């Protein structure tokens, strides 16, 4: 029973990780950059979602608006930040991204204050009895929301013209370009979708903690990197599996080996263990 509850909590953690990490792995797959500022966009999603919900009272309205808004910001980030330095060694984009992330956190603090914001009335807090557990609607929404969003995404990637173009570009940019697919368009789309998903992730997490604070991107900024590496860098399926596995490892780890090392150390010990056995991650990239 307890194991089942921990497993479910692990899946909830994993779903949150997945929705954040997918955007990151998409960016990596396409551009080979470690996009740390993704975590800043995640936090922006949290802020926009909360502010719109508080202003209109509707979470359903806030989600798409925040996702679209952050998606646009993501495109701007690509254009201004990464586009000009794509031909440089990878650490250049990494450091630039870290700088951008630090600046974003500080802007949130200066604009929204250091104490963090809370919902006037937190949505999705009603409880659902499930196998003797009390789960919050928000927790279920996170799991099912992630499944639906990521499922839709993979469906669109296979069935629509632009989706196919996108996949083709990820698989082989030169080949795709020779078929007349504009790589720039694909990159913009990629950042729009990835950042939008991060925004949804930010809103999801704020529903559990009722807190949106400037530093909320801190943990995702490095944990999401660990996840995409674990998943094989650029491999979307691998990233999803890695998210869930890491979520479950953390859920059990914090209880049973929490006195030996903290949550981050558990996650990274697991990562190092996996990489020493499989240097290319759980599923290898592309």
């Amino acid at each position, binding site marked *: 029973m307890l194991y089942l509850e921990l497993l479910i909590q692990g899946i909830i953690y994993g779903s949150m990780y997945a929705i954040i990490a997918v955007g990151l792995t998409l960016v990596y797959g396409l551009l080979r950059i470690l996009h740390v500022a993704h975590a800043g966009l995640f936090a922006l999603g949290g802020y926009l979602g909360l502010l719109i919900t508080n202003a209109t009272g509707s979470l359903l309205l806030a989600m798409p608006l925040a996702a679209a808004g952050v998606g646009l910001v993501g495109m701007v980030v690509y254009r201004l930040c990464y586009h000009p*330095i794509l031909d440089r060694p990878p650490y250049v984009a990494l450091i630039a991204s870290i700088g951008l992330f630090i600046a974003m956190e500080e802007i949130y603090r200066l604009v929204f204050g250091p104490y963090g914001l809370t919902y006037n009335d937190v949505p999705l807090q009603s409880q659902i009895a499930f196998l003797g557990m009390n789960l919050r609607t928000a927790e279920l929404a996170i799991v099912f929301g992630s499944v639906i969003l990521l499922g839709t995404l993979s469906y669109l990637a296979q069935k629509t013209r632009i989706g196919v173009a996108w996949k083709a570009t990820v698989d082989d940019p030169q080949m795709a370009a020779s078929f007349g697919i504009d790589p720039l368009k694909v990159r913009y789309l990629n950042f729009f979708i990835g950042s939008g998903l991060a925004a949804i992730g930010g809103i999801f997490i704020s529903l559990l903690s009722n807190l949106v604070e400037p530093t909320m991107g801190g943990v995702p900024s490095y944990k999401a990197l660990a996840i995409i590496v674990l998943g094989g860098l650029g491999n979307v399926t691998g990233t999803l599996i890695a998210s869930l596995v890491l979520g479950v490892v953390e859920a059990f780890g914090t209880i049973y080996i929490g006195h030996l090392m903290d949550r981050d150390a*558990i996650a990274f*010990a697991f990562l190092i263990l996996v990489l020493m056995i499989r240097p290319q991650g759980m599923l290898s990239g592309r």
Partner: protein
Amino acid sequence: MGIYEVSLATIVLINIILALGLNMITGFCGQISLGHAAFYGIGAYCTAILAKAGFPPAVTLLCGLILAGASGVVVGLASLRVREDFLAITTMGVGFLFLGIVRQQEALGGELGISSIPSAGMSKIGFMLFVLVLAALAAAFSLFIKRSWMGFAFDAVADDEDTARVLGLDVAAYKLSAFAMGTAMAGLAGGLYTYFARFIVPDDFGFITSITVLSMVAVGGIGSVFGVMAATVVLTLMPEFFRFISDYKLLVYGALLFTVMRFAPGGLAGFLQTALRIRKARGETG
């Protein structure tokens, strides 16, 4: 020089040793490390414990240096197994693992750290001069390596390790020596920090410290000894320069990192080189 300037100079010099150590690994040998602070921490903790046990600085600093270098070789072994971005995230994991474990060791003071560390037995100015000599030695050693055939071999590994291997280079041995030397320098810096602060806590050696050091190397111009030293001075003193805009200090820091990487991806050294059209070639015939 007042005590304020002396303390600033000391911390700048310690950071120079730390950054030159990472420059050895990342700049010379091309192995990106996001966990450099762990070795800084290993040196600091080793020095602190021995100093409290009554050993003189010459012994404690040397032990810190050796222990950090030895740990560096172990982590270097990981660099033989995983490459590039995988290595970056693995080393980041090493940093988190180090921190997570130290936090839980009561023998190392746990969260409370180690305080009341005996002084190095010098005046503040005396200690600063001592660190100055060591920093000068570290710089001279870096230049020495850079000019030697070893530096040439590092260039080759950083450029294309497969080709280097085909050309008869024992790539593994060179990577391990880069890790050993670079982390030993971090260990020395850690020991000096211990005598400077005479109080250490795990958080001194966290991910943010690793990122800060990597920023110094990248902003300076990866591989350039003088560039890295200049960037270390600038980035360490930045909080002091910007005291008058206290509230925007971190924002300016983040924005600066981003701007340098975006507009001068070669860092300060690269910028100066382009500006002055210097090209240094090993094989200059003229």
